[in-house]
């Protein structure tokens, strides 16, 4: 369990209401308004994308929207920086392969 319920300095984190979203089609839940990446982390999801060239996994790295390692396909749009994108009810979050959500890395589309 990675969610902090009570912190010695900060107390209980202030969080939005619980909402459902999907990750690669699986229903998950998180707190409204928290970064999508935080919700995924709390659900144990580490891999956000596979890279274009080497097809290697990547996850959260900077958590502040700079490095863009955590990009995913969100509601059909690729390259969404999940660490700075607030979670909403019903979001469709998908692992990004290269620049698409297709495990063939969009090769067929070439």
């Amino acid at each position, binding site marked *: 369990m990675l969610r902090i319920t009570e912190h010695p300095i900060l107390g209980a984190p202030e969080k939005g209401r619980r909402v459902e979203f999907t990750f690669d089609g699986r229903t998950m839940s998180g707190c409204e308004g928290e970064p999508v990446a935080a919700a995924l982390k709390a659900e144990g999801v580490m891999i956000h994308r596979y890279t274009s060239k080497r097809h290697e996994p990547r996850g959260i790295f900077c958590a502040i929207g700079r490095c863009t390692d955590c990009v995913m396909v969100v509601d059909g749009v690729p390259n969404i920086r999940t660490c700075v994108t607030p979670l909403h009810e019903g979001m469709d979050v998908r692992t990004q392969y290269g*620049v698409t959500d297709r495990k063939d890395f969009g090769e067929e589309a070439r």
Partner: protein
Amino acid sequence: MKQKSEVLIIGGGIIGCATAYYLTKKGVDVTVLEGSDFIGNGGSSRNGGGVRQSGRDPRELPMAMWGIRNLWPGLSEELGADVEYVQEGNLRLGKTEKHKEILTGLTDAAVSCGLEVKMIDEDTVKEINPHLSDEVTSASWCPTDGHANPMAATLAFYRKARELGAQFYTGVPVSELRTVRGRVREAVTPDGIFEADKILVAAGYGSRAIAGTVGIDVPMTERKAECIVTEAQPRMFEQMLGTADADFYGHQTAHGSFVFGGMSGFEAFMENDGTTTSTSYGASCTCRGIMKYFPELASAKIVRTWAGWIDACADGVPVMSRVEEVPGLYLACAFSGHGFGIGPAAGYNLAELIADGETTVDLTPFRYDRFKPVI
């Protein structure tokens, strides 16, 4: 530093690097001086990557056609580096009747020069590029056009020329040319004088001041041009694009990103402030232009913008010429914003001109002394 060579090239852009490559390949001893700290730092690394024949001035067309037939297809292999050349055609798009007229005019002129290019209707345009918006009603289509990666191509010429023994010095601006006994012989720099039997000035707009030191003037001016690049996107299309309205041009790169250029209308009124920083509004103008043609790119993110300075010639075509009145001097400048696509061909023919005196493509239309008052 090697201060003496057979040929001295001033300018390390694609023209200078390509000429250096083809000269060294012929066994000529070449030195290249680049004023900035970087190879290919001017228009060579700032353009939209078009390798086009269509839309060109008829005087320039033979050179463009020759280069696309003879050099571009084998260039990656020849230089041992992927220059990302793609020959999937060029669409020049129109949205209005007026645009259609402009496109038809350009097409007719090119056809009369023997280029395979034609006007196509709305449906055919959509067949070639289904992502275009319904606003597009006509286009010219040249299937043998394409695009390449300007930075990779310029640096590949540099790398290969360097490998073959050409000497390159960056950060060495030439302030003056000097003649010795009636022939151009010396180039003055902060690092001393470089000597050569023949000197090619290929320094973009900077060529004007340099040639001016031996009394030669090329009527050209500087115009700012801006580009934008997106993050990598899923593959959409392979063609090179332009428009009748000149509101944008560009293509999707091998990397997946889109490189687009565009205009805001203020380009002719900017003074060169010595920077290549884009304006605060240029990218926005280009984005608006693109989205009218490609609504689905609205969510594509721009990661970078930049600007460059075009050496715009009085009559819109380059100068590639021997300067008879200053023996030993050669000029290659004023490429007017469309030098990249003909860069390899220009380099090839300039090398011939300098080394052999004869060229494969007729360079007469590009003579330095062609400019005459119109009134």
